[in-house]
């Protein structure tokens, strides 16, 4: 899928993935890929600024742990993030259903 098409939807996608539980950055990207059936193929490095911005906005918190000798940062959805997810999801659903309504093919001949 064209990466440009995902612009502006990354917040919603990341919040949605984290709604199922805490994940580190690599796992967030893996989940996006798996849940989109490999359609969302992101430049992985661009997801971290999104995670950091959502954390600054108070929608996520993060905690560090040690795994296989490496420091690992995991992100958790906050109550504010959950509310933000609900709001963005509702907006998206209205947008998507409106787009579908416009794009649907009408049977030919088009009778009023």
């Amino acid at each position, binding site marked *: 899928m064209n*990466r440009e098409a995902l*612009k502006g939807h990354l917040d919603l996608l990341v919040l949605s993935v984290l709604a199922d539980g805490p994940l580190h*950055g*690599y796992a967030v990207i893996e989940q996006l890929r798996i849940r989109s059936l490999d359609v969302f193929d992101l430049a*992985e490095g661009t997801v*971290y600024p999104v995670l950091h911005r959502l954390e600054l906005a108070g929608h996520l918190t993060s905690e560090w742990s040690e795994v296989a000798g490496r420091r*690992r*940062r995991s992100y958790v959805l906050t109550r504010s993030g959950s509310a933000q997810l609900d709001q963005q999801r509702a907006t998206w659903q209205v947008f998507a259903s409106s787009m579908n309504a416009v794009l649907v093919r009408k049977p030919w001949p088009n009778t009023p």
Partner: protein
Amino acid sequence: MAEYTLIRDYLLAIDLGVQGRADAADLRDELSDHLHSAVDRLCAGGLDSVEAQRTALRNFGEPALVAQLLAAVPPKGSPMYTFFNRGASYFAFAAAALWVLAAAGFPFLQEALFPGVTETAYVTMVVMLAFAGLLAGLTLLAVNVRLAGSFDSVTTIVAALMVLAVASTVLAPWFLPAWLGLILAATSITLNRAKPTPLGNGSPSILLGTVWPILTIVVVVAAFVISTVSGVFTPELQDLIQAIALPAVCLVYAAGMVTLGLRLRTVSVSQSDRGPLIQA
């Protein structure tokens, strides 16, 4: 942990773009964990370590772009971010309250309405206007920082205009074109920038970006005309006009500050609302 030289070099390139940040070490550790996890996964899938590193780094993106995107988000706990974001709505509401008080105070400075205006009342009014300007300036800076993600050149211009506005208010409060003009310039620059985003569209941009500038220009020009054209307006009429017009300017600005404060409280500006977009 295996030493992967390509990853090490990549992380050094990222370091150059984020050096000086308080959280530079955390960023490095986080990206390092990601890249090592990716390489481990690719090696488990049958790639040799060099090819796995190349693939992982290709998937991660150009280091210059990644570093630029990382640097655009202020560090967690950054005093500037905390100052201009968490407290921003309070600046706006406090500014609005002071502009309302200033509006209420203007009629009391008109000799025709309240003879015997004291120096104390005059100084009190000047101090109130200066603080109203200062808080409005902090609000405008907060909007700019939120939109730009940093204290960029436009934010610096707005800061300079508001510092001059506050100084003019204190030094020459009677010269409306100076301090009102400087506030008008700073406000217009900010609202013009915020207009296409959720932070400024609708009521803030209508009030502060259109109604208030027009009203202010009309009042400043009218004040200049009635004070210079002798014989047309009696002093009493001049005072009466100023007792109505200047409070109207203050009240509209206060209303605009309230709408901006509400937006600062509720709207989170996404990267896509800013200039450079994330290349997903």
